[in-house]
């Protein structure tokens, strides 16, 4: 009975208010992402107990503590691996993975690529600020060439990774980019990403106001152009998406680059899960099946 009541009651913004307030720096882009996620969950009327928010380590990875859902604050770079396990054990859950560019594209790069090719059904939001913030300002995998940080005081000499192109190449079935300075647009992308069956990748420009003086709100604002504003752009065209992903500097596209719905999500592809989530499966192996396992060895 309690379940029915909980599931049918109206989902409100207050349901998602975390036990503590975020300790991000004032003006941090991550506040905007948190608000957009909360708004998206309310718009989609998903009860908080059906959501698991999973992160790695970093400023933005403190996210699960600031939203009232089931949360996991895991190891640096490992959130996607943990999230895959959660989703496969109980695919009725809505799984959100949140983290930063260092967490996802640096230490977690391997899991990032493989989770996309597996098409795990989750939304992965990277709060991309092109810097390591929690460790007080070092170069990240998305820092531009020439950017001066504490770890590269004479300027970065390594080319940054392009998360959108990488996601497209790795087989992500939903690829988008948002900007925490564009709240409504970001909320819409989050809703689409949650609704998408399969791996949804959402790279969000979430400026670090303390350590990144290159990629600021002021720097992004005149450059970001919404793909949705171009009526000729079709997110079903992978080649066009790849082309758009290469744009930078003067014009930086945000919005949905690509989506395809014809690929089964990982949990849909494995017949073991046809009967429903593993969590609800009976733990005992039926006696006749057990007997057949032993007889194979005799």
């Amino acid at each position, binding site marked *: 009975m*309690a*379940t029915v009541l*909980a*599931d049918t009651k109206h989902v409100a913004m207050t349901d998602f208010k975390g*036990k*503590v307030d975020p*300790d991000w720096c004032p003006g941090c882009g991550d506040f905007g992402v948190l608000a957009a996620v909360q708004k998206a969950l309310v718009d989609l009327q998903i*009860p*908080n*107990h*059906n959501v*698991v928010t*999973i992160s790695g380590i970093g400023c933005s990875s*403190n996210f*699960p*503590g600031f939203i*009232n*859902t*089931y*949360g*996991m*604050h*895991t*190891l640096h770079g*490992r959130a996607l*691996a*943990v*999230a*895959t*396990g*959660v*989703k*496969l*054990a*109980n695919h*009725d*859950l809505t799984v959100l993975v949140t983290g930063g560019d260092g967490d996802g594209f640096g230490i977690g790069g*391997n*899991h990032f*690529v*493989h989770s996309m090719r597996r098409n795990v059904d989750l939304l992965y939001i990277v709060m991309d600020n092109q810097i390591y913030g929690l460790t007080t300002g070092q170069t990240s995998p998305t820092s531009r060439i020439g950017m001066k940080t504490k770890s590269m005081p004479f300027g970065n000499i390594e080319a940054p990774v392009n998360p959108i192109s990488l996601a497209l190449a790795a087989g992500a079935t939903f690829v988008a980019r948002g900007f925490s300075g564009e709240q409504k647009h970001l909320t819409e992308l989050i809703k689409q990403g949650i609704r998408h069956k399969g791996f949804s990748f959402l790279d969000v420009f979430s400026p670090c106001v303390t350590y990144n003086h290159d990629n600021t709100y002021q720097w992004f604002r005149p450059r970001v152009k919404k793909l949705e504003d171009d009526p000729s752009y079709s997110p079903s065209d992978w080649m066009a998406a790849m082309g758009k992903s290469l744009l930078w500097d003067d014009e930086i596209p945000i919005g949905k680059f690509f989506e395809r719905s014809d690929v089964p999500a990982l949990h849909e592809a*494995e*017949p*073991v*899960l046809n*009967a429903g989530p*593993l*969590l609800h*499966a009976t*733990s*005992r*192996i039926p*006696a006749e*099946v*057990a007997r*057949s*396992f*032993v007889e194979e*060895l*005799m």
Partner: protein
Amino acid sequence: MKKTFTIGIGGAAGQGVATPGDIFAKIFSRRGLHLNAYNAYQSIIRGGHTFLTIRTGPEKVTNMGDRLDLLIPLNQDAMNRHLGLLTDGSACIYNADTIKPGAAAEGVALCPLPVAKLADITRNKVAQNTLAVGAGLSMMGIGFPALEQVLNEQFKKKGDAVVSENVGIARAGFDYANANFKPFAWPLPMTENRYAVLSGNIAMAMGGAAAGVKFYCAYPMSPSTGVLHWMAGHARKAGIMVRQVEDEIGVVNMAIGAAHAGVRSMCATSGGGFALMSEGLGLSAMMETPVVVIDCQRAGPSTGVPTKTEQGDLWQMLGAAFGDYPRAIAAPLDIGDCFKIIPEIFNIADKFQCPGIVLCDLLLSEGRLSVDPKDLDFAPVVERGDLITAPGSNGDGAYKRYKITESGISPRAVPGVPGYTHTAASDEHDEDGVLISDEFTNPTKRRAMMEKRMRKVDGIAAAVPAPALSGPRDAQVTLIGWGSTKGVIEEACEILTEQGIPANQLQIRWLVPLHGDAILKILKDARHTIIVENNYSGQFARYLRSETSFVPSGYIRKYDGEPFMPHHIVEAVKEQLAGKSRLSIPAHEILV
């Protein structure tokens, strides 16, 4: 002494050493005979040298033994390496067309098979193997129908023509031996018993299925890959989600994710993969999410010797991940125990919400043993601990995931249950799961949370039995081992006792918790204590000393990649009793 019969089959990888081994194993187990098989092989798909030892007998066979009764060399190399080790009463069956025997000891029967005359070798490349199996069984006094039946099963997928060709070749070998070779002095008996023959890897995988594992993932790594293979092959029948993951870091974290969502979750690897999992073990401990990790030890360090056995990972297990946290570490004693130990350690891990580590090794993982099907219990006791999977009275604000309790155990709600939302964190947190590692750092809370988690150590100790001495109390020698050496030490004790040196054995199965007091109580009465282990530095001896201050009279260690044989231990014990040494390192004579 127990009566046993041992066959050694040697050849290059790809020459088909495995198939005759499987055929012998099947026939022996169906005669109601016990058996133990160990394959010494190289990390090579074709070529090299592989030597399979199958030892059988009417009573339990716990190790490969000291003696070969029948040698089947499939090439000259195998003949050269092993013939010299045969003793009076044993025989060597070989292809007379391609292999020349060397000098054999007195009483060794050389049994050349004229392979080209007995079979069409242009059609059947492994004809020599099949002929040798037929000849060998004839000399063991086993009737042909047993072989015919196994060949039928072995080749039926390939069609009737292949079956009848192989049966024909086997028959030719059988008849030729009947006519030309002397039967063994001890015809193999028959009993009413029937056994399953399985590897430790299969046993651990089936033990997982029996324990209710619903999620298994792994990255291939010798010698643990057999667990993945069984799991993958049986996943759909057993209702287990099995995934091959990009690396062992992903493996352990994925397993923890599934466990966190409420299902029993397991993974297996070897030392190198375990090193990558180390940080994940800490995550399991800190989030208090139970996960079971199997480590199939191989000789290290680094890539080490992937196809050879060692007990060299103990300190890695003891020190895996930084910080202090409760853990359970169990080392199965034999292949049957590989099955039993999985449900047991899951109950500990679930109840105490901590990682459970199974410390297996190549000897058990890839060795094979006959096990009474009754011992493969698919309905073991399953205790999930304090797990909340449905809404209850303590939800909605009252619930604290990391509630401080006397036992240190806090009720664990799985995602999806209304009213119990919380965050499980790898950072230090308070009872509510709120991080206290950054601005909220609070020494009082940190101390309380450490103590809460560590209180579970006492509970784990109480839940696991202390080890016991086997054999006479007042023996002259007490041999102390852990895990997979149980069988070989047991046999060494029997031999020593027979030779007038009464010996007993203390075999350790639970490494954590160790029960140091109980061990000291046992050992304080012992006259001469020797710790036997398969590693260089005496990892268990050092651990025992660190926990109990106990120093034994001597040590027997082996780190050449091959397992102990009984005589290695027997001779070392005698050497030490004679005061010649405190540390014996036996040399392995069957060289691969």
